[in-house]
């Protein structure tokens, strides 16, 4: 994303920023920047229906620039598209004030954003991150096992599952070659899918990970395909394939893969490496039941209050999903927390909820902290009670993208 123009007043956070998204990943940043009630100005395509005096209707599509007050955002990670709905805030000759419109942000088209509540520190950090021109590491990864392959694109901020290949393989059976045949077919299907996804003209590294030998067998399969076919690009692609070990073919195994030495050395994604390292450290402390590691909104807030997340190793890990809250007060709560930790001299890491480490964090409620000194009784007196009754409320478990607010608020009895 390129910053075209900005006039943000740092004192009160007022002002606008004009941005130019250049690549699909920028939509993700835009998704994290734009909040409900913000003013967004972008080019739009609007269908205008005019009715003449004689009653005949003519439909016309016009290009216009609209300013809307955002009510809803819809991000499609697969296609990297962002749809922003809202009500028109500035009248023009085509559209009346208050009319509804959904803007589809497009690549290579400017948009201008003005924050309703002003640009807070987190928003400014997000903006900085979005416009940073550092080389963006990208990587294809296939986590697989026999009969299952998840093909994903790993970018700096997201892990996007692009395709899932699932084939029912017959197990080994004496005197039958069905298993081998089906395995070859599975490799072929996966290979074809990969070719459809990957741009061989400008290939990113491909990481194959699996338990057992599936990944190396698949690498061998690709090599054979490259050797027999006339695809020159594929042959040049071969050195970019890395084979690693994963515990299973499921996506959450990716974190294990991505933190392995073989991968980090090639990835040189320092941000991600640091985050992964911190997550590992946090889990290690948890495993040892060390009271310096705490997770959960209330616990972390309490820890920050006591000044435990400060200078000398205090780290606050927070998922950016928390900042996407529809509720302004909730967002402000987290922004305040972040500011406080920064003030105390602690380290704040905003993890992408679309990335592997961020997903692990989400399991913990989206927020975790490593304290500078142990506090034993952070969650004492915290007996909301009746968790037995509410375990299945709000329970989709994997619906992480839309944040956590209200996650433990609405409980109801389940019938079994």
């Amino acid at each position, binding site marked *: 994303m390129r910053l075209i123009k900005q006039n943000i007043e740092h004192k009160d956070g007022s002002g606008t920023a004009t941005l130019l998204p250049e690549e699909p990943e920028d939509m993700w940043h835009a998704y994290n920047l734009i909040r409900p009630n913000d003013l967004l100005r972008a080019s739009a395509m609007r269908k205008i229906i005019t009715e003449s005096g004689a009653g005949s209707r003519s439909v016309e599509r016009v290009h216009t620039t609209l300013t809307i007050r955002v009510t809803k955002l819809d991000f499609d990670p697969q296609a990297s598209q962002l749809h922003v709905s809202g009500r028109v805030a500035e009248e023009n000759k085509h559209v009346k004030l208050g009319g509804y419109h959904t803007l589809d942000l497009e690549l290579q088209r400017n948009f201008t954003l003005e924050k309703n509540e002003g640009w807070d520190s987190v928003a400014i950090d997000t903006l900085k991150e979005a416009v940073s021109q550092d080389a963006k590491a990208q990587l294809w990864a296939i986590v697989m096992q026999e009969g299952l392959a998840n093909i994903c694109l790993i970018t700096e901020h997201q892990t996007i599952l692009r395709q899932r290949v699932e084939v*029912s393989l*017959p*197990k*080994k*059976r*004496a*005197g*039958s*070659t*069905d*298993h*081998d045949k089906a395995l070859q077919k599975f490799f072929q299907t996966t290979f074809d899918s990969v070719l459809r996804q990957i741009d061989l003209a400008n290939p990113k590294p491909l990481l194959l990970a699996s*338990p*057992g*030998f599936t990944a190396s*067998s698949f690498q061998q399969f690709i090599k054979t395909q490259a050797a027999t076919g006339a695809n020159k690009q594929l042959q040049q692609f071969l050195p970019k394939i890395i084979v690693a*070990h994963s*515990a*299973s073919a*499921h*996506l*959450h*195994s990716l*974190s*294990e893969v991505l933190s392995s030495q073989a991968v980090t050395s090639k990835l040189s994604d320092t941000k991600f490496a640091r985050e992964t390292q911190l997550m590992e450290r946090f*889990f290690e402390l*948890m*495993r*040892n*039941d060390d009271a310096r590691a*705490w*997770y*959960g909104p209330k*616990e972390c807030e309490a820890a920050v209050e006591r000044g435990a997340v400060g200078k000398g190793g205090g780290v606050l890990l927070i998922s950016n999903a928390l900042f996407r809250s529809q509720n302004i007060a909730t967002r402000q709560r987290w922004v305040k927390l972040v500011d406080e930790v920064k003030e105390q001299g602690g380290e704040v890491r905003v993890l992408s909820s679309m990335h592997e480490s961020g*997903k*692990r964090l989400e*399991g*913990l*409620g989206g927020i975790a902290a490593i304290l500078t000194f142990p506090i034993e009784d952070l*969650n004492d007196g*915290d*007996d*909301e*009670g009746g*968790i*037995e009754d509410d*375990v*299945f409320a709000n*329970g*989709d*478990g*994997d619906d992480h993208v839309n944040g956590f607010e209200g996650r433990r608020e609405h409980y109801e009895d*389940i019938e*079994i």
Partner: protein
Amino acid sequence: MQRVKNIDYDEDDVYSEEEEYHEEPSYTDEDRESFTALTPVVRAELQESGLQASDKEIEEALWHYYWHVGKSVAYLKNSRTPRPQQPQQGKKDKEKPKSKFDQAAEESAKKAGCMIPFPSTASDWFQGISWSVIPLGIQGELVPAFAAYPRPQLLGGSSKLAKLAEERRKKAAASQAAPAAPSGALGSLDRLSKSKDVKENVLPPTMPEPRKYPIRQKREPTPPPKEPSPEPEEATEDLPDLRASPTEFAKTMATHAAPSQVAEAAETHMDSIFRSSSNEDPFKGPSPDDTVMRAQWHSKGINKHARKPSDGLLIKKTEALKLEPKIKSKGLDVPKLWAEGRASRKSAAAFVVIGHVDHGKSTLMGRLLLDTGAVAQRDIDKYAALLIPHTFVSMLINARRYQKQATELNKSSFALAWVMDTGSEERERGITVDIAQHPFSTLTTDFTVLDAPGHRDFVPNMLAGASMADLAVLVVDANQLESGMKGQTREHILLAKACGLERVVVAVNKLDATTPTAWDENTFQSVRSGVQKLLTSVGFQDPNISFVPCSGLSGTNVVNPAPSTGPTAWVASTSGTILQQLESSPPTSPPEELVKAPLRLQITDVFRGSITNPISVSGRLAAGNVQIGDTVLTQPSGEKAIVKGIEISAEPREWAVAGELVTLHLSDIDPVHLRAGDVLCSVDKPVAIVRNFVAQVTAMEALLPQGVDVHVGRLHVPGSVAALISTVDANGEVVRKKPRVVKGGDTANVKVSLQEGAPLAVGDRIILRSGGSTIAAGQVDRTGS
């Protein structure tokens, strides 16, 4: 008739003549009896029309027409008519252009010859075909038409039986040195009247004209109805009639719809056919086709109501058959059958072989199968021969096995392991990847070996095996106890317990390779105490644990007891051989409630059983019973399938009950709806699809809210621990609500969310793994949506 045949001669006919088998009819006693009875009748008939025939001819005719007097007479009469052309003239003889009259004559003669002038025969062929009851409204107006060419024979003429009979007839005629002199008494005009007997139909039929004859003959007006003829036999001498006879097809069509006077005559025919009261009926018994059909019917075990061949309700039956499902349940009372046969049955047990990688599980099992005779030495030798040097070296490089030189010893170890390791990758790398299943029998018990992989990457497969087993055989390398204790010996013991196994036989393996001396008793004892401690700590009861010193490679103390002298002398004082230990493990019979419970079977494998059984699934019947013909439901796909066949240890069965390892052949389902890990259940009480559940688990490592792999037997799905609800103590009392972490060894109630719904029920044993290690195991306590 012969003359007419000539016209049609083509290469096919010549060919078939050459191929014809020269078999003289050999008569049985029964035949002869029929001959004595029928020959005079036929002779009388012939004499009536002024013809003579030898006994032999009559017999022949009768034999070929299955003792049908009318047909035989007709045939004999025909054979005595003058033949202008001999069959041997062959196809090269071009027909002279024929006069219209001649054509018509041929037509009629052909009809008379090829279709025996008895409507009954054709009706017979059509009996049971329901289109004979076409309502009047939709019947076409049938008008006679004269074909300019010999018509293609419909149905009757083309039936294989008729063809065969005709061939035989021709043979017989040709083989007679001097064909019977045509009696001059019968002229061509006579022959034309052959079909007189069948023209009582009001609606003379038309034959469907083949398309290649576009020019239709001028149609005659519908002829006036004739008087019903008295009897078919009298048709022999009658007025010439140039009209073509109705086809057999049309006759059958008309049988029901014909006006009354005709119907009456037809009725008599039909009656005589269907009731088969007349002993003239050539199709009295079931036709060969019927016999074959019925045999097949029976062999498939489909039809309980055998079809009665000469039943007047054949049509009804045919319709009823169409409605029957392809595979019909016999409606057996399986629990009862099972309870009745309980005493007489051999006990059956499945055991899973577990242990650390490279401790010799597969080799030990290969040895066990070899020594019990389930596998022939020949196969082992074959495998040994297949171990060509370069593969072998690559195996050693690739992996692992022993750190010694590539000796003959290692080679035979691999050969034994190959009994279980049938996959190409397994053999190439010398490592078991997936469960191998192999049955073997002793005098007392039918065993099923489930050879589990030891490598940590394949623990999911080991879980699939452990969930199907009744007991476990833990293989421990006496020389490498330490590596196992840290690795999969420990994990497998935990998992075996988590899968609900209670009994474990510990095979202390590779005692022939102990240092400093082979069969060192101290080594055995130290291994024993170490493993025992671990087993007890996990929760196995002492009486359910037994230790057997053995060597899978040499086979000592596996099936055959160790020599009572030499270094192995002390072995006899331990608990016998592995096989003895297995046999002494009482295989538990499932309780009756379990057999009567709704069907539950977790699919461990979906495969192509054979050409006839393209979709087969295997697994252990966790509950309930199943029999051939049952309809089952697969979850989570929710598709129904019919059980086409059941196999246990490659033996076909009619039914199976809980606790058995079965292969079910399914039909009426697309294989995309079946995956390993899915559950087959009864249609009435299907297993629910669950996305969230509460489980009481024992943590093996620190358990946090985190992403986990959830295993339930073969099922392996991604999920997450969504919340830690409470930790509980041994009595189930809540120690702490909402703990921030569950430490290893603690028991806790946790909420687990799955990414996709999975078929789960309360009480299912679940195992949570993460990053390649088991972090918790337990049972489903409550299920949510």
